[in-house]
């Protein structure tokens, strides 16, 4: 029996476009833009001002509060401005803009391999915090916060997410193939923080080379296990992984740590290894450029702050004769549609998918009334009933939506919308309803205070 979670869908992977392309480092020449908010939590506070010279690896913004992260320059040059710039979500955010001198002069504080045999847990967390590491799987949660759960001894599984279930993306596949030893070393370092934890690396079976490489690297390590997983979306979701590895389900109001689990993306663990062993802050990460509209899909190591357009042009631009219809930061299942490619790549961005057609637009054209076929219920990884939830929203019965149907438990993976033969915008409805209910609750709480 293949290890996996319940439900899920099988979107077309399109991995063949880029899966075998080796990682290549891309050094941009244009101006670099660093949004102050590239993580969950408070935006960082700038520590440089216009005209300041900066070097690679130099901290340019500092974490503001506990749940926040430092931001590090990925190029050398001069600070051009601290101003509002367009970011990939379409919002204009405060950004530090640096005039790149193209030299990439390092600040000189990192790069030497250090002896880590005696490094303590606290030192590891400090290294992670100093490096400005956030979850590279997409959410961008500050990693040093995650590494400090209430009771580290209660963590039983430290799960490395190498599932990469999102279609098109293959950079983590390549990272595991090329840097397996470093990832395993990073995992070993992290295990020092959690005395009772077993390290489990979950990788979907459609990446046999990565599984092989990771197994080789983990050979002989007692507390580490490589776990091949069924290829199914959203296998790489935090909850799906925990369900597959530990067999646990937990409410949306609980954290993985509450059930003794901790999930980190393999890219994050690689960054932790770089930070602890080499003292290198997080200024670059792996990135997949793919999609039908791209001339040369591939996997890159990109510098934070690089403009999407520059990377695309460097890679050869669009395929000839193809009109770009949709640009996604990330893959098609959870990626964000961008209005412009002239925005900076952020820490947690792991891919750019360019599509020549828009499945959403086509779906809208083919929408029919709900058949009650129940496919959405079958695929929901959380065990919800999307069709009934949509009916409750239609009827304006938010009470039923929340209390009877547990509508707030939706993780917005989009499986229901994907599978719906009537092409109904299910997940989109839930996203909106969830926001509405949360806003109402907040308003009620504030009203209560007054």
């Amino acid at each position: 029996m293949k290890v996996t979670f319940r439900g899920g869908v099988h979107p077309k992977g399109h991995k063949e476009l880029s899966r075998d392309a080796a990682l290549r480092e891309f050094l941009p020449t244009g101006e670099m833009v660093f949004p102050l908010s590239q993580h969950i939590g408070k935006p960082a506070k700038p520590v440089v001002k216009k005209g300041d010279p900066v070097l690679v690896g130099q901290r340019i913004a500092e974490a503001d509060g506990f749940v926040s992260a430092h931001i590090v320059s990925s190029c050398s040059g001069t600070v051009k401005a601290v101003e509002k710039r367009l970011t990939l979500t379409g919002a204009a955010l405060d950004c530090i803009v640096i005039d790149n001198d193209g030299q990439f002069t390092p600040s000189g504080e990192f790069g030497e391999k250090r002896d880590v045999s005696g490094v303590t847990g606290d030192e590891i967390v400090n290294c992670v915090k100093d490096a400005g590491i956030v979850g590279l799987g997409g959410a961008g949660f500050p990693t040093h916060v995650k590494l400090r759960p209430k009771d580290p001894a209660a963590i039983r599984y430290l799960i490395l997410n190498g599932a990469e279930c999102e279609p098109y993306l293959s950079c983590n596949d390549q990272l595991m193939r090329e840097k397996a030893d470093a990832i395993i070393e990073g995992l070993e370092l992290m295990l020092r923080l959690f005395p009772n934890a077993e390290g489990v690396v979950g990788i979907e079976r459609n990446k046999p080379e990565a599984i092989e490489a990771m197994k080789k690297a983990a050979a002989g390590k007692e507390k580490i296990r490589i776990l091949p997983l069924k290829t199914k979306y959203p296998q790489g979701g935090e909850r799906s992984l925990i369900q597959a590895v530990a067999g646990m389900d937990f409410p949306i109001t609980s954290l993985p740590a509450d059930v003794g689990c901790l999930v980190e993306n393999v890219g994050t663990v690689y960054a932790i290894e770089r930070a602890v062993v080499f003292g290198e802050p997080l200024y670059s990460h792996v990135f997949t450029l793919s999609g039908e509209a791209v001339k040369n899909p591939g996997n890159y190591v990109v510098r934070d702050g690089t403009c999407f357009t520059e990377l695309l042009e460097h890679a050869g631009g669009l395929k000839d004769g193809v009109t770009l219809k949709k640009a996604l930061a990330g893959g098609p299942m959870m990626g964000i549609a961008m209005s412009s490619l002239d925005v900076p790549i952020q820490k947690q961005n792991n891919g750019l998918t360019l599509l020549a057609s828009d499945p959403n637009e086509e779906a809208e054209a083919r929408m029919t009334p709900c058949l009650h076929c129940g496919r959405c219920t079958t695929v929901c990884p959380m065990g919800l009933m999307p069709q009934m939830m949509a009916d409750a929203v239609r009827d304006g019965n938010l009470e039923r939506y929340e209390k009877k149907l547990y509508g707030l438990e939706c993780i917005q993976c989009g499986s229901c919308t994907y599978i719906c033969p009537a092409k109904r915008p299910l997940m989109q409805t839930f996203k909106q309803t969830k926001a509405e209910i949360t806003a109402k609750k907040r308003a009620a709480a504030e009203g209560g205070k007054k």
Partner: protein
Amino acid sequence: MNSVLNLSSSPHARDSWTTRSVMLRVLLALAPASVLGVINYGLYALLILLLGVASAVATELIFDKIAHKPNTWTDGSAAVTGLLLALSLSPSVPVYIPVFGSVFAILVVKCCFGGLGKNFINPALAGRCFLLISFGRVMSTFKVDAVASATPIAEMMNGGEVNITEMFLGSSNAVIGSSILALLVGGLALWAFDIIHGQICFSVIGGFVLMMALFGGQGFDLKYLLAHLCGGGVIMGAFFMATDYVTSPVSRLGQTIYGILIGVLGGLFRLYGGTADAFSYSIIIGNLFTPLIDTYFVQKPYAYRARAVRLRSGDRRSFWQRIPKPVYVLTAITLIAGVALSGVFSMTKHTIEEQKRLKNAQSYSVVCPDAEEFEPDDEADDIIENLAGSWWGEDYGKSVIKEAMIAKGDDGKIVGYVVRVSTSDAYDGSLTLVVGTDPNGKVLGISFTELHETPGMGMRCGEAEFMDQFAGKEVDSFVLNKSAMSSGAANEIDTVSGASTSSGAVVKAVNAGLDFVRNVMMGGRES
């Protein structure tokens, strides 16, 4: 890069399945049944199927046009309704039947309630019930090669024997889509490809089998249960009608409850109701319960289920573990009840047969009142045994000689003969009667041991006014007079008005009995 980019919420990918592709697969699953139907019943059956589909699609198209609604006929759901309806019709219905049925199903049940996804009962079944009520007579006439006969299910309901192999292939006198084999192939394929929910079809069958085993009086007799499963649209209902998405519940538990409800109701109607269409009605009642079930049976997310934390891992459970618990419970109950009932049945079997013999003996006395005792006749028994249930001669329809006895007076002299004849030519399946004659073949009287005709019509064959016409006549054979005028001939029997089929069946059965008396009973002794 100057192109305008589309913005929308994720996901930016869609499965290739559409409403239409689902419907096309259902149509494909119905193809084996349709093809076998046409092979068995000929091109006229094909015409009926085509008319059903075409008028369903046309109705939707015209309604959309008139109501200024987006065209929905292309989604294939109307075609599925039309085909299902046509498949559940007798191959001998007039051409207007599938048309009326489809128009009612689509226009009234589907379109008037808001179109696809909004109908509250299965449109095909609603259309069928509409036809049953409006055109009862044509709907329940099953003619093959211009010979009207009872459907297997009608025969079964009257305690007759059926040929299960024939029902599997669909060559018996039933609806066009009656081949169990073809329906199972299509239905199981739909289940295997996750188009229909196994919870529904299997709990319908489970509930029905449970009912029949508990109250059918035959216990767990496999042949009996199989015969009932194969007849009367159980398989068609379980796999194609009850599983209709729109009118069935969504949660697994709800689906199981809904399925069992339909199965149990179907069994109940089959056992205690008068109609052979038990399943059409039970599914419609199930449909009506769907909104209620959907309101109350909602599944909780995994994290809130009792077993959430205990499970090591979701799909690491074995196949057996993944079967919902109610299935095990129901199977256990069914098995226990079945075993218990078969025990009771085999214990009481003897008594039941004794009862039957007594009942027969009573009717023998009625038709031959002078007799003290009835003795079996070896020669007659041999002949009856050799016939093995086949018909007695060409001229007597589907009359089967069941038993023949010699009636003797107190001094041991032969005072007459009695013959028990059963015929399946009756309007509602079969009837059984006893003919008594004196030693010369003069009819002393007739009596029914089994008569299930329409009350007020066929049932009046059991009244003295009709039965007494036979008594005291010594003729070669009787002739049914359907006109109001009587010619006065001795061998003429006036029909019960409005029930010429029943009356005709009775006359044929009596003639068969007389023929048997003359050629076997009397012939063996006096010449």
